[in-house]
């Protein structure tokens, strides 16, 4: 079975970032993903679109969520999926990224999904490999599939992006999720705010056309969407933030701070969450405001849509 519309959505054979996509392409990907939401909820979740294709998940950083989401997306489209993690690969034995790429290339995969701790790693692999490359997160650069799944989640709830106020809160400095999201949401007409202590804000962030807030209550005022970011444990012991308790007091999302957002504001988190650090448990678990479970479901759908879109360019 093929998708109803077989015209190419992506001009490139890779998805390396939100940068380079047009609003039209994003809308088309979201539209395509809607069909996969339906498929994911059906009894028979599987099609044969990618039958015979090989998808390799190459994860240099551990990630349960993204990796399994891609694995499931590939399998539901009928591809053969192989997972490679750094601990079991020869990279751990000192091989360079380029060597790894050549080795993988020789296995003739059709699609490579890569996550790497260094910015630009997906870009580098895309130039060395003959297959399609999907960036599943490179350093603090981009995580395009996360931004697309967030967009799908938002659009399904609120109908669109124009004029929405989205507050992205927390460790923006180290976050590829924030960078991809602010690119996508700004492009689609939303007003993006970044809320963080100055130690967690990247230099010249205001140049992205976003509003910067260091006071969370002010930053949340009137927001439609509150998007929380994960704070890595090693960053809350004094280097960037003095302690987890101080972080929660000033930047953790609790009822008191959420009350400053627009009534009915929705809360998102890319996961995994640090309860009691960046988000209070009662908010994370409140299905009235939290979109966190929905984000995971949309993750599979959007990745199926991306695999579909890329497969149209596969020879």
């Amino acid at each position: 079975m093929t998708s109803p519309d077989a015209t190419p959505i992506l001009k490139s054979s890779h998805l390396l970032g939100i940068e380079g996509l047009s609003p039209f392409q994003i809308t088309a990907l979201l539209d395509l993903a809607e069909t996969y939401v339906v498929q994911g909820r059906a009894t028979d979740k599987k099609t044969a679109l990618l039958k015979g294709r090989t998808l390799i998940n190459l994860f240099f950083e551990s990630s349960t969520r993204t990796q399994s989401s891609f694995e499931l997306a590939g399998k539901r489209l009928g591809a053969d999926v192989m997972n490679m993690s750094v601990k079991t690969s020869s990279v751990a034995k000192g091989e360079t990224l380029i060597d790894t790429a050549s080795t993988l290339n020789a296995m003739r995969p059709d699609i490579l999904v890569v996550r790497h701790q260094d910015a630009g790693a997906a870009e580098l692999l895309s130039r060395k490999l003959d297959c399609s490359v999907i960036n599943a997160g490179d350093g603090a650069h981009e995580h395009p599939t996360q931004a697309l799944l967030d967009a799908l989640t938002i659009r399904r709830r609120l109908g669109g992006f124009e004029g929405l106020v989205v507050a992205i809160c927390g460790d923006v400095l180290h976050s590829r999720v924030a960078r991809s999201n602010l690119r996508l949401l700004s492009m689609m007409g939303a007003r993006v705010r970044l809320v963080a202590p100055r130690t967690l804000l990247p230099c010249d962030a205001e140049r992205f056309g976003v509003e910067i807030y260091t006071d969370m209550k002010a930053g949340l005022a009137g927001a439609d969407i509150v998007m929380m970011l994960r704070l890595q444990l090693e960053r809350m012991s004094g280097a960037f933030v003095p302690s987890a308790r101080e972080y929660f007091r000033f930047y953790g999302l609790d009822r008191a701070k959420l009350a400053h957002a627009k009534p009915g504001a929705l809360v998102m988190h890319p996961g995994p969450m640090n309860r009691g650090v960046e988000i209070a448990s009662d908010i994370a678990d409140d299905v009235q405001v939290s979109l966190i479970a929905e984000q995971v479901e949309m993750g599979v759908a959007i990745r199926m849509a991306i695999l579909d879109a890329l497969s149209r360019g596969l020879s």
Partner: protein
Amino acid sequence: MNRRIAFRNARLIDPASGLDAKGGLLVENGVIVDVGPRLFNDAEPNDPEVIDCRGLVLAPGLIDCRVFTGEPGGEHRESLESASMAAAAGGVTSMVVMPNTDPVIDEPSLVDFLLRRAAATAKVRVLPCAALTRGLLGETMTEIGLLQEAGAIGFSDGDRSIANARVLRRALSYAATFNVLVIGHAEDPELVLNASATEGEFATRLGLPAAPAIAEAMMVERDIRLVELTGARYHFGQISTRAALEAVAAAKARGLPVTCGVSAHHLMLNELDVGAYLTFRKVRPPLRSEADRAAMVEGVASGMIDAIVSSHEPQGADTKRQPFASAAAGTVGLETLLAAALSLVHEGHASLSHVLGTMTAAPARIFGLPTGTLARGAPADLVLIDTGEPFVVDAEKLHSRARNTAFEGRKFQGRARATYVGGECVFDAR
């Protein structure tokens, strides 16, 4: 019940407003409710408490921006109570205390402890600075937001410089998030390691381990660059060299939020005053050349130096009765701050109002305090000053527990005759 105190026949000096005139002042329930040249001029006020100032200066109580005490952990040297008695005797109504205690004030609960102890024992206001880095180790920042909520009015590693520029950069960035004041100490820690004097002919003659004076300006210049990068409000607790002053002046000219203080002893003494290894004149930073001392006086006169501070640092016989190089640095100063500063007036360097402003209006502005002024509505923190009274410093007569004064035997002119905190008399030598 209303408690009113009427001060009449005073020379009112309020540097914050420029007021310098004969007149009166009325206090009600600890707050200044009226002040002016004509108040109580003609008739005796009807108030039960009338204080005839007999022409003495009535000024806002002094705010000393840089005080080290021994509480907690070194109460044998100085407690908040004993320091506050020295402060009251010196006309100081607010002490900004540094966090270099044992334990270090780097936890919100310790700020709370300090404020409770002060409320229970101290005669003057105690304004705690919390540590900028945990344990003053210069490695990880403290809980600036929570410490501010607990009552810390500034953040400082006291007499320690933060050597690691990355750590200071992030601490300043984080401090800017909360718009808190950071108080820095400018001495390159590696350059001044083990030094007890300023490098130069005199230290060479004495054979003392010494550090170059530029150790200060280097850190001032680095810190200013980081202030420019981060936007943090920054106060150099004390500077002591012309080069540092020039760096601060350049930063101010660029509009950076930088201020600085100077200690009374760096205004009054130079490196030669160490004489025959007088350990009571071993201070940190060490006493400087006469040219640098003169530059400090000039800096106060021009207004480029914002505040005169005591850098009160109590030491005991155990730490001071040592060979110079092994002795601890520091001098007490709460009680001599006013007298030393008045020397600048008597020597014709600056007006009385200007000099008092460095210890009242300027600290209030730097720390954002409601005190330091005679304005209506301000807390009635007051000092009555006899600017002409001879004052020969005698360590045995000081009110502080520690007696390590660098000014022993020094002849000053002028001292506090009475001190009021929130309308309460905490010192009276009239």
